[in-house]
């Protein structure tokens, strides 16, 4: 159900995104960091769903909040001549790997034992969204 929704969203998004106008090159750096933040939120959401501790408010605010905050931080970094976006990328990608590890462990346990044991899902870090 959830994965069908995700795939459907991705396909429709791709179809619309291909026909969208391009943005100016100078803004693409901000969009890139927002994409990384949003990607992190989505993976966080998926792993939280598998852990059964999904919270819609945290997810939605995390999705938009992280994206906007990372854009603002990148902008600030450009004004200060510090590559703050690198720190944001390290944090987001690190969390993305954590969440991917949680998802992976969940499915490995599910398929290897042929019975889901939701409580035994372990990740090094139980990030919510």
């Amino acid at each position, binding site marked *: 159900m959830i994965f069908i929704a995700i795939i459907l969203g991705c396909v429709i998004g791709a179809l619309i995104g291909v026909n*969208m106008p391009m943005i100016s090159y100078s803004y693409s750096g901000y969009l890139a960091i927002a*994409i990384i933040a949003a990607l992190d939120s989505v993976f966080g959401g*998926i792993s939280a769903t598998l852990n059964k501790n999904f919270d819609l408010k945290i997810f939605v605010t995390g999705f938009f909040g992280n994206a906007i905050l990372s854009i603002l931080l990148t902008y600030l970094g450009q004004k200060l001549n510090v590559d703050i976006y690198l720190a944001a990328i390290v944090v987001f990608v690190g969390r993305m790997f954590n969440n991917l590890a949680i998802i992976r462990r969940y499915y490995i346990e599910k398929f290897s034992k042929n019975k889901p044991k939701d409580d035994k899902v372990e990740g090094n870090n139980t990030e919510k969204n």
Partner: protein
Amino acid sequence: MKKKQIAITLGIMCFLLTIALCVQIKTMNSANSTVSQSLADNELRDEVLRMKEKYDNAYRDLANAQKELEKVRQEATQNDSTAEAKEQALRENNMILGRTDVQGEGVEVILEDAASTSSSLNASDQIIHFSDIQLVVNELANAGAEAIEINGQRLVNTSSITCEGNIIRINGERIGTPFYIRAIGSQSRLYGALTRAGSILDAIAYYGNRAEVTKVDNIVISRYSGTLNYEYLKEDK
């Protein structure tokens, strides 16, 4: 129906995310730039290597063809006494045109950008411009230089010295500082023209640029590396 709500939210988020991703990818594609600087550098390096190999091959072909031509010419003139005089004239003309390596007495001028301790605050005063090179070449030609070479580029009839932003192009080849300008001709006249009071070298050296001239007894100037192509030129009878 909490699960449905979760699914719809995740779907919408993924929808937004893919739109952003597609826009970003499209923008980056049209900007023709890679995210990774090193990747772009590597591609450029590959391209340079490929072009260099092509150039080397073409150059080798040219050298072979020239050798062949020489051989054919020699064979043709071997048993003919009148053709020998022609061969002599041809060789001389080729030398004057810049098609053969030449040697003789002359001078060598070294022009180099100023060190950071220059007395001028204007960055433009601290570098050698193409016009400086042109002036030096003019001075040398005026003093009777018979062959001039700049950083390995022989000046021939079709040579040009142009400014292309931060590099100087001679005969279509890029050259950079320091510039070694070698000229074959009367040593004393060439040297005198460049060292007289108020000479062009004084003007160049005024703000700390290096501008030196030395007499050299035996200068070897290599041949023009390009081809001399005359397509529209015809003799007027």
